[in-house]
């Protein structure tokens, strides 16, 4: 029987956004369109807080699974359903044929299931009313399929029937990533390392609608090309969520060696992080970002005591968002697995923070100590020099 497969996506928070709703929805559309375009031509149409995604060309038609996955990972969408659309719906007999066809396509004849039918009649001109349609379809399916039984109180699934310009049938609901469409909450500069935390922090900020750019500090030959590759791989994964990601790779070697040779060794970690923060801040200003983002969590490592965080925070001229600040490591790991960055993050390539760790780091430095440790440095010049030593990578990469 002739039927077309498509996708129904439901909007979440942005439905509540009142006057700003249109902006948010437009943004979501754009993000969705952009991500889907890699898999063919899709028509995206919105009504109420629902988006219908219809494949147009053959490439799109054979990429429905990919489209479902994409829709489930675009921020702003709360759930998705695969749908079958039937154009022959003129009378009850046609509706019944469609319902039978749907169950044959979608359900396992071996599995006993309890169901009910819920009908929405968007087309008020349609001769039959919703309760009638539900009842008739329910009875018809019951008759045709031995594995099905009706239970209107606790069904295993609900067959949704929508009568609009055609008959739409669906029964599954997959969870989406929710959040706000990327691009509706300004832009942030992420300090990206190869560890587990910073990619998760990126994801969390993207889920609040923030556009992201990232900065990574590379220190050849102290850090390997593999470590850099790992960071770029993480960026590639993140660009699936943030719709795009520019990575600024800073050649940090000269600065790092200079700090090592001109600052007290126990203050090395703090001095280094303050310098990285300054560079990130300057870069953020240049790139019109509203904030910095890090994956720091309180007390997780020596450099993340509240004293140390205060020392690094003060050198930034913008807010520093640390979405993981109150999270347990277990929770971060769980999120990292969910977003697909965990496996890459745990590859054991060192980054510059681990290579230059002093034997006895000062874990609770005071601001005075931090400033004193830097007193011989021409900070302005060092930051400027590093801003001129940047290699830029864009994700997703253009073919």
């Amino acid at each position, binding site marked *: 029987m002739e039927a077309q497969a498509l996708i129904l996506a439901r909007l979440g928070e942005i439905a509540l956004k009142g006057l700003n709703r249109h902006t948010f929805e437009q943004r979501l559309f754009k993000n969705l369109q952009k991500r889907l375009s890699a898999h063919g031509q899709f028509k995206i149409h919105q009504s109420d807080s629902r988006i219908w995604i219809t494949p147009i060309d053959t490439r799109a038609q054979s990429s429905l699974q990919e489209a479902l996955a994409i829709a489930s990972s675009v921020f702003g969408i709360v759930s998705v359903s695969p749908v079958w659309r039937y154009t022959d719906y003129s009378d009850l007999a046609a509706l019944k044929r469609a319902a039978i066809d749907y169950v044959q396509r979608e359900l396992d004849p071996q599995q006993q299931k309890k169901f009910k039918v819920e009908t929405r009649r968007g087309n008020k001109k349609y001769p039959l009313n919703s309760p009638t349609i539900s009842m008739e379809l329910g009875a018809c399916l019951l008759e045709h399929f031995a594995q099905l039984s009706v239970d209107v109180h606790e069904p295993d699934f609900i067959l949704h029937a929508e009568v609009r310009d055609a008959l739409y049938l669906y029964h599954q609901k997959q969870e989406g990533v929710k959040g706000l469409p990327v691009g509706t909450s300004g832009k942030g500069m992420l300090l990206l390392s190869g560890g587990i935390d910073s990619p998760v922090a990126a994801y969390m900020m993207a889920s609040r609608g923030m556009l992201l750019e990232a900065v990574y500090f590379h220190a050849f030959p*102290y850090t390997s*090309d593999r470590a850099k590759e790992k960071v770029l791989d993480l960026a590639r994964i993140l660009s699936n969520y943030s719709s795009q990601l520019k990575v600024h790779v800073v050649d940090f070697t000269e600065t790092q060696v200079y700090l090592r040779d001109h600052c007290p060794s126990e203050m090395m970690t703090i001095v280094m992080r303050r310098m990285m923060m300054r560079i990130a801040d300057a870069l953020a200003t240049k790139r019109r970002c509203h904030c910095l983002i890090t994956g720091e969590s309180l007390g997780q490592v020596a450099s993340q005591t509240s004293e140390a965080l205060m020392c690094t925070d003060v050198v930034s001229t913008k807010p520093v968002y640390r979405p993981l600040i109150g999270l347990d490591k277990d929770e971060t790991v769980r999120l990292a697995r969910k977003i697909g960055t965990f496996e890459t993050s745990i590859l*054991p390539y060192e980054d510059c923070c681990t290579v230059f760790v002093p034997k006895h780091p000062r874990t609770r430095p005071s601001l005075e100590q931090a400033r004193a440790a830097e007193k011989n440095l021409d900070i302005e010049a060092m930051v400027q020099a590093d801003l001129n030593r940047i290699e830029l990578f864009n994700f997703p990469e253009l073919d």
Partner: protein
Amino acid sequence: MTYLDHSASSALFPEVMELYLRELPHLFANPSSAHQAGLESERKLKQSLQNIARTLHCSPDELWVCSGATEAINTAIKGYLLFKQHRGKSILLSHLDHPAVVETANFVAKTANYQLTYLKAGADGRIDQEDLEQKLSEETAMVCLIHVNNETGALAKLDELIPQIRAKAPKAKILLDSVQALGKTNIKLKSLDVDFAIFSGHKIHAPKGIGLLYVKKGVSLTPLLHGGGQQKGRRSGTENPLLVMAFDVACQKVCQEFDARTERCRQIHRSFLEALGDLPYVVNSPSDAVPQILNLSFPGVRSETLLNALSAEGIYFSMASSCHSKAPYSEVLLAMGLERSRLESAIRVSFDPDDEVSAVQLAAERIRNWVLKLRR
């Protein structure tokens, strides 16, 4: 590029390349096929295996062709220890052994309740024979020995170890990892008196994908791979005659030209050290190690940093302390009792007779340069 990592893997001999170009287009029939083409494949494979056996001083029937040394090691350890009731209670090995031996032995010990006992190693990178004497017993099922250590080049004193084992643990089977030994020391399997020996193709300028397991006549082993029953049921899977022919060519070359090749490596080894000049370094390899492998440390410079720096210049060698593995330092060097400054800065350079002396000297100079720059 200046490739000084031959112990990790080696380039194909030109003779092997020629063999491939010559035979690959038409030598593709399955050696088990009943037709003439299959027979031809089989004939060439058998001939090569006979040659290899002659070179290694054993019988062709004692050689099992595998996909590599790792498979050979798995076949020997699992095939001997897993399937028949306890052939003794304990397995002796050391941290000088390659991870393929260590991991497989660990697995077998856990699975079939064997006791795993690690022998102590000395600062000379060899097994402590007094410790061996103490730990050998009637209950020893298998002793694993590494012939030439892949990280340091240390040569095991087999003429002492093997009689020692046979005297104290007559029932124990001896597994000899000769992967790095072929071409670097004389190997006559018949007179060695070991039960299993392991060889690898890509370490001797043959392609990757072939290893040999020597199983002494009379030793019974349960096969690892079942299927079509090739190699008399010992190791099922379509055989690759071309790979065996390549192994034969490479094996003959490294053994027949052994003296010249070894002498040449000695010269290259010397030139390398001379070119380091007055740079402070410590050699971790024992003085009587094979000349092809040199393990040395530059205290004050982390191995990975040095490797990254030289790699960017096209000079390639290996790290003994691998940040990529679960342990931060090399197990071998740890077992030898090296202090931290040496563990952190150890690199392994491996030489080949076809290396250009001038290129090797230049590499040493570049290493020297970087060490001076990076040293704290």
